[in-house]
């Protein structure tokens, strides 16, 4: 991994940098699996190796792919970095050893989650129950942050010129059609399965690794794959932009309203036990609903971001074949 990171410093072609960062993301994901964090690895594989690589490629397509290789005072920077590194390593000497059971981080609330989440929440995947129930407040904040980022990207990129020359794009599409016939047909067959897999991940989050965040990204990846194959304007006609923007807000709204409903029912904000007579059933319902909200928001946000980036590319879309799943 360090090798890939160093290669990112050396390589001057930004296209290669984007690909290397994808490889880096995948390596990180496998490291997470090795450290038992399956949910995190799932997210990192779809985000780090998939979507962010794709976004970088799109940006590189807009900005040009040459790095001028001017470095600001490399010696001084190297010195500062080494000094900080040495100090940080000195600081680690007091840290608990890797894998130790009695590390402070593993002693406070974590045993409670592990031992009691089955009685209190009734969900197999502890990560899901902590994410959606115990720390539902946090997750609500994250969803709002993502929503805000989408608004930011919209503000930055949706202004200015807008190209609505459908005829031109249509022509480009037919040449693409002839060139990449096999890719198009195979990918077209794959898209329904990707969508189905996203839904499986969405609703299976209670029992195995998965949940709204991952499902949203995978769902968006299917739409992006479609947009890459059939051209942006066609994809835009299939997926209405304003509907997607509305959906991003609806996701946050679902999440927030679940909180309000439980508040009205006499409980605390995001206390799902109120939602049903049986607390466990209430928890299940609450988690299902807010995971749905998260999934909708994440999918809509990623689609919005990608469409706005791709909109900026001039001329025939020079999108490269990233692996979005």
């Amino acid at each position, binding site marked *: *991994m*360090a090798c890939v*990171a160093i290669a*990112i410093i050396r390589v001057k072609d930004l296209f290669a*940098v*984007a690909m290397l*960062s994808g490889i*880096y993301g995948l390596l990180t994901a496998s*490291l997470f699996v090795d*450290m*038992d*964090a*399956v*949910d*995190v690895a799932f997210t990192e594989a779809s985000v*780090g190796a998939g979507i*962010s690589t794709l*976004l*970088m490629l799109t940006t590189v397509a*807009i*900005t040009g792919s040459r*790095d*001028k290789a*001017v*470095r*600001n*005072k*490399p010696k001084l*920077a*190297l010195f500062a*970095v*080494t000094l900080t590194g040495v100090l*940080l*390593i000195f600081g*680690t000497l007091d840290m608990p050893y890797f894998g*130790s059971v009695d*590390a402070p*981080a*593993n002693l406070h609330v*974590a045993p409670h*989650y*592990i031992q009691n*989440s089955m009685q209190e929440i009734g969900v197999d995947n*502890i*990560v899901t129950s*902590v*994410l959606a129930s115990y720390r539902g407040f*946090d997750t609500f904040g*994250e969803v709002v*942050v*993502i929503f805000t980022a989408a608004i930011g*990207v919209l503000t*930055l*990129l949706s202004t200015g010129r807008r190209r609505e020359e459908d005829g031109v794009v249509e022509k480009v599409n037919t040449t693409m059609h002839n060139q990449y016939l096999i890719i198009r047909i195979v990918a077209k067959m794959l898209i329904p399965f990707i969508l189905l897999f996203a839904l499986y991940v969405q609703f299976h989050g209670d029992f*195995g*690794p998965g*949940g709204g*965040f991952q499902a949203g990204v995978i769902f968006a990846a299917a739409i992006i794959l479609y947009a890459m194959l059939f051209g942006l304007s066609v994809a835009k006609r299939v997926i209405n932009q304003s509907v997607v923007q509305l959906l991003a807000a609806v996701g946050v709204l679902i999440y927030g309203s679940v909180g309000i409903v439980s508040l009205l029912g006499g409980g605390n904000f995001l206390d799902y036990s109120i939602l049903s007579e049986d607390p466990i059933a209430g928890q299940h319902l609450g988690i299902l609903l807010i995971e749905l909200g998260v999934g909708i928001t994440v999918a809509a946000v990623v689609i919005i*971001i990608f469409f706005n*980036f791709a909109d900026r590319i001039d001329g025939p879309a020079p999108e490269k074949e990233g692996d979005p799943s």
Partner: protein
Amino acid sequence: MIMGLYNYWIVVILMMIGFYIVIAQGNLIKKIVGLNIFQTSVFILYISISKVDGGTAPILADGISKYSNPLPHVLILTAIVVGLATTALGLALAVRIKEAYGTIEEENIQMKDDEEC
């Protein structure tokens, strides 16, 4: 016994590589990649803290009593998606800078700014 701390050293090395890219590279996209590496190193720090020897993934199953700490997993899971959102925002800014200045090299941007003053 000091080798038991190797996970932190990996984190520090990765973090410093990311830091170096952010400081020394003039290209804005590379800076964003550097920030990503920096960010990932923090993810690895959290996940490596949550790892317990002999533990398994925190999904309840019969016959298993030792699980890794699920709390850092939750924090990092959401952090990754938020990281994607911030990366997208950074790249969007880079695109706008490219449109305004015609370049994404820090030096050229500063030169253009100086000319205007």
